[in-house]
Each structure stands twice: as structure tokens, then as C-alpha cells.
């Protein structure tokens, strides 16, 4: 780790101000950033901690029936407090990492980082969530822009995420044996006007929607509906833990299992 300053603002306004400092970087739960710093792979001059900002924490239902989660809310809180409103999302949150990760890591941090194997991007994209920042609102379909790439500007903070609540949903994860990140994770959500299927872990382009499956499932929400659909392994990540073809195959298997388990 190199030396850096730490700022602990208690309001979004103060956080935005602090992030105006040169080489400032926002710090959520630190579950990715802190190990990166310890490896000396990043050298921010100042870390702006977002976890002391009360207005960025908590889970509630909005008047129009969406589930709102503050950007600095840890996964464990989502797992607990969203269970009643959006069980598919709460279940996803309850299986991220391990207890230490779930009690420190935040939804805003996860979405801002957009790790290609993270779970939350699948839920956000699969729900058609809205990412709310200190500046604007961004539709999930516009937000994710490839591995570790998002629509966020430098210093822009994810303050809140709003999830439309589907009729039924489920996230099916197949873990990479070492890291236990998603080797492939599929989030399936059925809304009144159609089905969304979002896939994490698999693609060289990060989280994506499997539109063919969405079409098939929208007309017949049954596991068998995706039979015969196939993704190309050429577009998928190929590494120590699985070939592109294997990941493409797993997307199909996980999608079917997610549909079968959707509640």
C-alpha cells in the first residue's frame, strides 16, 4: 500500500466536494479496492469513504412500487431487508462472497466497479434497474459498458439503485472454484410485460442480456423454452477455469435452472 489521505464525508455534497481533489477515489466497502491498494496496483492520493453517508444507506419501497437501495448499503443488509419485497434480489445478495464481504461490500461499490464476474450487475440489468448518481439517473441498459466499464464519469457516485420488482425472479450462480465469483451467473426476472435475462461472468464484454432467451421466455416462461438456443463460445471468456464453449453451455443450463427456481 502507498500512503494516501482518507476523507469521511457525512453527506453526498461533501463527498462530491472531496472527490474534486486531485487523484481522489471513492471508497465503498473496499472489498476490491483495498486488496488492490495492498498489492500496490493503485495509488490514489485520497480515498473518499462513502459508507458514513446516512442518506446513501438503507432499503425501502418507493411510492411507485420500486425497491430503492442506498448506494452505500452492504449486501448483508440487502439480503435481510429486501427479502420481503424482492426475494430474488435478496437471495442474490445473500450469496455474494462470504460473510465478511457481505457485511462490508456495498451495492454502489459493486456496480461502480462492474467486475465481469460480479453478481449485482446481473440483478441490475436483469431487473431493468435505474442507477441514480449524484448527477443523474441512468438506465441499467445504458449503464454497463463492458468489463470494469460503466457510464459513470470520473468522481460520479452511485447514490441509489432503484429496482422494478418482477412477478418472479431468480439468480442462478455457478461459481469459479477458486475465487467463488460467478463463473457464470444468470438473473431471470419475469415482469408483466416480458422477461429479462442478464448474464454475468461469461462474456468478454461483461454483463449482458440474452435477448433470444428473453423472447423465448416471454412467450413461454418454462425451462424448456430455452432448449435449442445457444450462445457462441467465441464471445465468452476463456481461462484456467473454463473455455468459452463451456461458459456458453453453462449460460443455457443456469438460465433453465433460474427459470425453474423463479419465485
Amino acid at each position, binding site marked *: *500500500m502507498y500512503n494516501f489521505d482518507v476523507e469521511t464525508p457525512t453527506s453526498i455534497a461533501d463527498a462530491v466536494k472531496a472527490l474534486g481533489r486531485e487523484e481522489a477515489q471513492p471508497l465503498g466497502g473496499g472489498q476490491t479496492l483495498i486488496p488492490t491498494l495492498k498489492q500496490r496496483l493503485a495509488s490514489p492520493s485520497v480515498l473518499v469513504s462513502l459508507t458514513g453517508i446516512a442518506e446513501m444507506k438503507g432499503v425501502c419501497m418507493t411510492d411507485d412500487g420500486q425497491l430503492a437501495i442506498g448506494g452505500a448499503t452492504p449486501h448483508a443488509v440487502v439480503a435481510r431487508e429486501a427479502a420481503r419485497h424482492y426475494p430474488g434480489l435478496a437471495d442474490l445478495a445473500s450469496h455474494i462472497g462470504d460473510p465478511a464481504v457481505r457485511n462490508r461490500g456495498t451495492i454502489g461499490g459493486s456496480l461502480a466497479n462492474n467486475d465481469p464476474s460480479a453478481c449485482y450487475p446481473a440483478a441490475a440489468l436483469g431487473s431493468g434497474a435505474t442507477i441514480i448518481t449524484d448527477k443523474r439517473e441512468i438506465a441499467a441498459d445504458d449503464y454497463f459498458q463492458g468489463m470494469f466499464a460503466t457510464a459513470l464519469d470520473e468522481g460520479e457516485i452511485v447514490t441509489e439503485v432503484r429496482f422494478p420488482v418482477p412477478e418472479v425472479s431468480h439468480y442462478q450462480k455457478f461459481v469459479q472454484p477458486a475465487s467463488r465469483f460467478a463463473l457464470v451467473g444468470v438473473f431471470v426476472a419475469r415482469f408483466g410485460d416480458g422477461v429479462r435475462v442478464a448474464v454475468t461472468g461469461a462474456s468478454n464484454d461483461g454483463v449482458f442480456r440474452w435477448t433470444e432467451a428473453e423472447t423465448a421466455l416471454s412467450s413461454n416462461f418454462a425451462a424448456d423454452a430455452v432448449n435449442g438456443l445457444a450462445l457462441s463460445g467465441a464471445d465468452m471468456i476463456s481461462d484456467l477455469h473454463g*473455455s468459452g464453449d463451456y461458459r456458453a453451455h453453462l449460460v443455457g443450463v443456469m438460465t433453465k435452472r433460474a427459470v425453474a427456481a423463479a419465485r
Partner: protein
Amino acid sequence: MPKDGGIGASSKRREDVRFLTGTGNYTEDININGQAHVFFLRSDVAHGTITSIDTSTAADMPGVVQIFTGADFEAVGGVPCGWQVTDKHGDPMQEPRHPVLAHGKVRHVGEPIAAVVAETLAQARDAAEAIEVDIAELPAVVNMRDALKDGAPKVHDDLTGNLCYDWGFVEENKEAVDQAFRDAAHVTKLELINNRLVANPMEPRVAVGDYARGTGDHTLYTTSQNPHVIRLLMGAFVLGIPEHKLRVVAPDVGGGFGTKIFHYQEEAFVTFAAKACNRAVKWTSSRSEAFMSDAHGRDHVSTIELALDKDNNFTALRTDTYANMGAYLSTFAPSVPTWLHGTLMAGNYKTPLIYVNVKAVFTNTVPVDAYRGAGRPEATYQLERVVDKAARELGVDPIALRRQNFITEFPYATPVAVEYDTGDYVATMDKLEEIGDFGGFEARRAESAKNGKLRGLGVNCYIEACGIAPSNLVGQLGARAGLFESATVRVNATGGLVVMTGSHSHGQGHETSFAQVVAEMIGIDESMIEIVHGDTANTPMGMGTYGSRSIAVGGSAMVRATEKIINKAKKIASHLLEASESDIELKDGAFSVAGTDKSVAWGDVTLAAYVPHNYPLEDIEPGLEETAFYDPSNFTYPSGAYSCEVEVDPETGKVSIERFCAADDFGNIINPMIVTGQVHGGLAQGIGQALLENCVYDDNGQLLSASYMDYAMPRADDLPFYDVDHSCQTPCTHNPLGVKGCGEAGAIGSPPAVVNAVVDALQRGGKDVTHIDMPLTPSRVWAAMQ
């Protein structure tokens, strides 16, 4: 009836009190006033010529004490290799120099190039980043077969090539073996890889060097399984420090698994630098450094062939193995694929003719050496996989084929130079069938099938050579050390004992089980006995702990020393009791005169030894302290039979272990609970190898599995509850305790059971799969099914 003390009792591990309450004393806990910290600048390329190193900017950075490079070590020796293998032509192996810091060339990612000693670790690290190193990169060799091709890049320019040795065993048998294959009714052939592993003890390596200018005494605190071996190797071969001026301390050590046997450059560096800088120097390995500097394990590529006659009797076995040495020869590396591997190829079977060829190869990778089992898992894996494949090819029951070929008469001299003293392979297989409930397998398989899973049952046997080792024999085989063990038993005036042993406990529970032995012999409570180990200043010269040798060799030394104590104490007692020495009996901590009610307590005798007012001074010396060295006359041969039941998810290839049973014969057992724990740990590591762990380099010699993000360690939920049994006991005939050792069995016996089970599941499921290389990850199993 379970005993509540002494031999055979499941005494609770006394060392766990400090381990579990955070009050252990590990090397990292040792801080010496004024100590500096060292950070090693390590190569990030696998192979290259160092064209320049400029430390001038770094030297002026804050806190820097001194910066060292390879040039500073020209006057000292290289890190030595402790075993010389002679090849099939009678020539010695090629043995490259192994510098403390790279000099001229770098030969693997992670090799230390420079060392910065500074006031703090952060300052040392900052300065290391300011060192300018120019390396002219050279093509790397990673694949062993490629490394042996004409024109392959040479890891060591001064050697003839990348072949360390080409070993044939037993070379005189080769023609007879080949003939047996020509005459065979059936030949089964299998090519397989024994995957490279990283040991990953919970505690990374740490070393602290200290130097007392006033006396010239050096001290090294280090995470070692064998402090005396480090003192001998480093003192005599690297730094030229005589043993009486060098103390090596290995305090509490958080797991070794083999990788802490070896003498490493970092130990020599901190010892050297402490004198050069005139202050203590500490190094603590990060986990990232551990991946690229701890010696790795396994990494064999083998072809094995089994010949059978028309009645399915094994008639000959032939193997051809490439064994990766890495870039340099680690301390015992040459012995692992040869004398710890070739000698075990008979396994539990009376195969009359065996020929083993091993080509040891240098590559641009981290050195490879012993890892839990060391050579024996590689032998067992090959043999038990090929036997299983033969059974499937012949359409016979794999258990029946094994039983048919079991060795049943002991002692048994194998065609690969060892003699098994005892064993009962039928008994352990019977026990396995009982605890494994094989009769219920079909019902369990049907249940799995209902859930869409393929269930399979894999069985294998194993034999290992432990209790390492008879010194005269290993000397003939190339060992540059003896492999005896030692113990000093010091009885205190009030009757308590301290046993100073050359064995080292780094998780095995010696402090408990060794005390049980002495308590049993004298008939006193275990709490009266303290086991001291790990410090060359207060233990006799011993060879340390590895190769499941501690109770068999170290325990035997302790028994011999305790026998001397008892003999002397009887003399004292006979004086106190005014009786003939031959009439004195020791029972339950009291000496009595046979046939009378006269007795004297243990404590009265020990007090008399140190307060010799009424004492036969003309016949015996005062005091009660004895030392014994024990050199075994043979290896010990633990054996057993293991079974594994798996479920395979045909859609994803994921394997889950549903049941694992182990029936072991360890001879006599001191502490059943500790033995069970040792088996559990070994099984976890063996199953880890079979399903999860894999150390992978890319073609440029970059380590791809360099952290826990990519190197999969087994976790609790990857493993089943085990059924472990060690009630089959054929005591060792040649050591006083009749013990065989149990530390490595689980890691040796479990990988073939897992792979056999997965192949069984796939074949029962109609898949045409005869072999999958470890680790059997979901992606590999899925690919095999396609």
C-alpha cells in the same frame, strides 16, 4: 475401553490451548530490538540475462539501510542440494549452482534479484521499486518434453542441457520387463499428469536473522520443519558458519506439508545481512511471494503400462515419467521422483517385474520438491489408476482384481528394492467394504439418478514407505545426510520430565502424543512431561519432521532414551530399597521389589538423583538425563484401502463427494484422535489435488494461478464427512513402538479414489470416458463428456 492416558488414549492436544487462544509464538511474533526489514525484488520474467542493476536512486531513499545484489554473494556458497541421484549410465545428475540472489541470469518468475534492508517494510518496498533492473529476456522453457528437445533454450548455460538425470530402476530388470510385456495376454496403458501443487501452509514463511557482534554468534529464527538440517546446510555449505556459532530456532510453525523442509535463500540472506548490517533483519513472506518462492509439489507427466496374463495376474509394470525440477534443485528434489517414487511402484501387489524410468527436467519455473507424500502419491496415483483401467477393460470387478493380486505373505521383498515387513491388505479391504457399505451403493446410485446425478464408486489401495530412513541405505542411494533421530530425556529433581527431541511439530500434535509414550513407559501422568523441540540450542542434533517419520524414528529415539532413564532409575531405586536391581519393577510410577510390599515413588528416586545424600556415588553418577539416537533398520510401510463415492452433475460437470472412507493400517497407534485428524487433513489435501488445486504456468513462464483468486484450495464445504478407520493394525516389526506413521497417508491414498469414482460415474452413465487429468474441475469433466 478407551484409555484416559498413555499409549492408545485420545488425549486432547495440549498445544491447541495456545494455538486456539492466539498465544502461540510464531516466527512472525519474534521481534528483536533494532531489527530492520528486508524486501526482495523478485524477477517478473521467467528467463533472462541481467544486463544491469542500478541501486543508486534506491540507496538514497528514506530508511534504507543497505541494498544487496547477487554480486554481494559471490564469496558465499550457493544453496545446496541434499541428494545426488545417479543416472542409468552410472553418472551423477547435473547439479546447477543455486545463488542466494540471482547473478547473471534469472531463471524463474519470483527469483530474488536484489534485497533492500530498511527501517520499515514499506520503506524497503518503496526503495525496491526504485531499483532499475535491465533484463534481456530469453525464451522460457516450461513444458518438460519441449525442454528436452534439441535446440531448446537452456535454463543453465553451463549444463549440457535441461536434463537433470535419466534414471532407470531397476535397470538390470528392463529387458525382462520388456519381454513380459511381449508375452502378456493383456496390456493396459495410461498417460497421466500429476498436477503441480502449491503447498499453502496457513503460515507463510518468515525468517529473522540476528547477530551478536560481541560474541560472533548468529541466530536464525525460521519457519522450518527441521532446524538442525537448516543449521547444517546453511552453516556448512552457504555461509561458512560453524554450528557452535549458529543457532537455528523454529518456534511454533503453522503447517509445513513438506515445503518448510528445505533450506531457502531468504534464510541465508537474513543470516548474512544481520552481520553485514549489524542488526537483526526480518523477512515475512506475503502470500503472493509464497506462490512464487515456496517449493512447489508433484508435477509429473507419466506413461504407465500394466501387463497381465490370461488369468488377470499382474506380470509386469513399466513406467516412464518426466519429473519437473523447476529452475534449481531444491534440497531434496532429486530424491522425490526416484527413491520416494520408484521404490513404491509395486504398491500392494505381487507384480514380479517392474521397470521405472524417470527423466528429471529443468524448466523456468519455481523449484519443485517434496509435498505431503512426496513421490509416493505420484506412484500410487499411477498404479491405482492403471489397475482400475485394466479392470474396466477386462470387465472384471476392480476390487476383485486388486484382491487377486495382493501381496499376502510378509516379509515381502519387492522387485523395486524394498522389503515390506508387515501388512494385511485383505483386512483393510474387508474393513473398507464394511464401512463403505458397498452393498448399499446401487440403492444410493438409483437415488442420485432420480435427482439427475451420475453416481460412481472409486476404490484404491496404497502403500507408503515412511519412518524415513535407514541412514546406511539412503547413503547408498545418494542422500548427503543421515536420517536418524534423537532425543534427550531430562528428569528434574521433583520428577517432572523434559524431552528434547530432534523431531519438530508443526501441527502434528507431538507435544501431546510424545508425552503419552513416556507417561506410559514410566506410569506417570502426561502432565509431568514437557516436549521441547525446534531450537538447536536446546535439542540434540536431529533431522526433523517429514516423511511420516516422527513417531517411528523420533519416537523410537525417545523410547530408547527413556529406557536408559528407567534403567538408571532402577539402579537408584535398588539402592534406596536395599534390594537387587534385577528385582526392581516399575509400575504406575513406583519402583517396587518383586514379591514384597516395599516400594519407592518415582519422585523419591528422581530427588535422590539430584540430592544424592543417600546414593551409590561409587557406582553411578548423580543426575538423571539421557540421550539416544535412533537409526531405523528399515522403512515402515503403512497401507490401506480407500473409497470415494461421487455425484457428477451431467449438465455442468460438477463433482461432489458424497462419501469418503479410509481403512488404514498404521501399526500401533499412540493417540487415535490425533491419527484421525492427520488422516482428515491428508484427505483434504488429496481431494484438493484431485478436484481443485492446480498450479499453472503459461508458455512464457508466467504463473497464472498466483493467488487464491485462481488457485483453488479445498474449503470445508468441498469436503464430505469422512469415515475413517484404523483398527486394522499390523505392528511394525523393527521399531520399539510398532508404529508406522500416518501423516501422509490421506494425501497419498485419496486422489486415485476420487478419479476412479468419477470415471466410474461417467461410465455407468454411458459416457465413453477412460481418464481425466486432475484436477477434475467442472469444465474438464464437462469437456470429457462431450
